[in-house]
């Protein structure tokens, strides 16, 4: 089974400080790391490979430095790595990024599964994974907490919902985004680190993946950021306590007030 894992290099937010004078984030000297959620994607890919055989290719779009993220993935056991990197990609929003990664995936070809982390910690949009599946026109299962079975070109997985979980079955190829609960990522061994040092990273430009000019970079990015803010916390639910009959009546009364 061939698996593609999409990762992103992000600043290590545990090291980002706030400039006391300007109140801006100080990104200088802050280490870059592999997006923590992507580590779970890598681990799941490696475990599936250990079980079913095949190959794990790790893919990222980013500046040349993003190569470090790919080497880290190789140190953990990924077989191949592709960096899509081109000035023309600068300013990509999630739509353009999804498109670009899809084009690279088309070039990689032969894949059964694409795995992404549920979201990147520097943007928190959670859009790129689903965006890739949409662009490639393949099924997707998001927020996966467990892969139950892969058999006869179908996958069965549990996905987390706000209320509980759902069991979903899909044909392959398919895209998964995974949550933390899915596994406990491994640490690199020395042998792995050594492989990573000498690994050849393929670097593809916009031309290499035959990306349409108007769908990448700023041109391909219709998103306008108006404002960034933390949404207000959900107010606490109301709890009706006491004797059952009494609280049911209270509940009905208060619902009447909302539903006319």
């Amino acid at each position, binding site marked *: 089974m061939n698996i593609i894992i999409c990762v992103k290099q992000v600043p290590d937010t545990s090291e980002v400080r706030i400039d006391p004078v300007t109140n801006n984030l100080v990104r200088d000297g802050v*280490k870059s790391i592999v997006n923590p959620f992507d580590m779970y994607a890598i*681990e799941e890919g490696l*475990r599936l490979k250990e079980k079913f055989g095949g190959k794990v290719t790790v893919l990222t779009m980013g500046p040349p430095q993003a190569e470090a993220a790919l080497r880290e993935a190789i140190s953990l056991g990924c077989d191949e790595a592709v960096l899509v990197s081109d000035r023309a990609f600068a300013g990509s929003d999630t739509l353009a990024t999804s498109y670009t990664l899809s084009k690279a995936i088309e070039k990689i070809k032969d894949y059964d599964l694409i795995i992404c982390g549920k979201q990147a910690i520097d943007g928190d949009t959670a859009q790129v994974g689903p965006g890739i599946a949409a662009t490639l026109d393949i099924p997707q299962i998001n927020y996966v907490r467990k892969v139950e079975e892969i058999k006869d070109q179908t996958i069965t997985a549990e996905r987390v919902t706000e209320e509980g979980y759902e069991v979903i079955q899909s044909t392959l190829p398919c895209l998964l985004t995974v949550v933390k609960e899915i*596994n*406990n*990522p*491994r*640490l*690199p*061994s*020395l*042998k*792995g*680190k*050594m492989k990573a*040092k000498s690994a050849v990273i393929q670097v593809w430009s916009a031309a290499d993946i035959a990306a349409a000019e108007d769908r990448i970079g700023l041109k391909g990015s219709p998103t306008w950021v108006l404002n960034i803010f933390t949404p207000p916390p959900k107010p606490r639910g109301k709890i009706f306590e006491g004797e059952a009959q009494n609280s049911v009546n209270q509940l009905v009364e208060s619902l009447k007030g909302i539903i006319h």
Partner: protein
Amino acid sequence: MSNDNLIETDVLVIGGGPAGLAFAIHYADLSKKNNLPIKVMILEKAAVLGNHTLSGAVMNLKNISQLLPDVDLTTIPTQTPVQQEEILFLTKKNAFALPFHPKAMSNKGNHILSLGAMVRWLGQIAEQKGVEIFAGVAGHEPIFENGKLVGVFTGASGLDHEGKPMANYQPPTEVRAKIIILAEGSRGHLTKKLIEKYSLAQDKNPQVYSLGVKEVWEVPEGAFLQGRVCHTLGFPLSSDQFGGGFVYGFSKTQVVIGFCSGLDYSNPAFDPHGALQMYKTHPRIAGIIKNGKLIKYGAKNIPEGGLFSLPKLYHDNFMLIGDAAGMVAMPSLKGIHLGIKAGMTAAQAAFEAIKAQDTSKETLSLYEKLFKDTPEYRELYASRNFRQCFTSNLYFGFLKFGINLITGGRGLSLSGKSKLEADYKHCETASKDNHLPKVAFDNKMLFDKEADLFFSGTKHNEEQPCHILISSRDTCVDCIERFEAPCQHFCPAQVFELSRDAQTNKGKIILHPSNCVHCKTCDIKDPFQNVTWVPPYGADGPQYDNM
């Protein structure tokens, strides 16, 4: 172990501090010059080179220029030349300048710098020269074959608290080399095993240590002159304790404040971290930092026994260099340039041995021979009885030190070699008299351990076996009864907590290993030698960057 997890090289260096890096750089240079393959590899347990490095540091740069004759030394980051220096004797409220400045302590021409930054700088140079550096990997277990050291295992990962493999288990890697260089720094855990196995410390004085606890402060410009070096004696230590403070003007707005406490103290309630906090209440020190902000914290041990505590430096297939061997010159408390020189001389010996395909102890004895011929060895020789002067009383110590200076370091003992006793042997029974004055922590100027610890950046993977090994819990019960658990005081990172049962008042030690800053004091000072420090997962531990 399958061959899949085997790596082979000519020379394996354990520890990427100044000594290990100097070794590797010089070895690579010699190999290149002679058209031989450069096969030297460094394992460093910190996630990034320099992250576990903590020093003063006032450094003598002369050996860097010997190591790197073609490199412009002004490219060493963070260096500032020493402008002014003083030695003060502190009483609780006052400070008296020492009327003379012993030559052995002079820092004329030296530079204040961050050793962590310098180590990263050296690391880049080493890699350019073909040295393979793997950070985030600890040497865990020695591998012996036919009674000889032939390599090390790195640690496994993906183990639960009991040490059982989990789904993310990764096996250790076996690294085999013709020569292994132990450059682990003070109290290296592999070094300790080798010294014991091959009786390398036979007929030597035991090694003795000081724990250096250090903070870096951001201060308004003018609070302390950049390039100023201040050493202090006296407050807050009583006159029967060895130790002292240091304040270095690291840059216009950064000052380094540290306190070193000799671990041969006998009060079981003594707390080296508390000593630094108390030190900062002195008007001289408080005045410097009162409008400042703490930015970094850390602690590390210094081997201070000197020449007579140096073990034999080599055996079949391995050599000990730098702090791992105890190469720190007293009283100037300098080890960096000694470690670099030891690394260079060991590289010469390793190169000859690899070339001759003979790595036996007979061939490697060249290292000790070469080292004995260096000015650094003479530095150690001159102060060979220094630490021995200060085992009882500070004033008496100065008298003995004076005699030492007159007799060229010999002192008054007939053999010319004064004895030392291991630190853990000094421990009085706990009593009310032991209790020290309390520090009024405000976490603005005076930090309790927990608050200070945040500034060490230390972190450990929670899912792993505890890396602080306690041999016997019964011994803990004895220790609590007699000494009231000195571990809760000497550990600068609050790893040991004494908890007492509300009903029976019976004590128990609870461990918080993820707080550990890898200073190794527990391994040294526990009165029953009941604690052994082993490396946690690679990359775990403090994140010092510029200490």
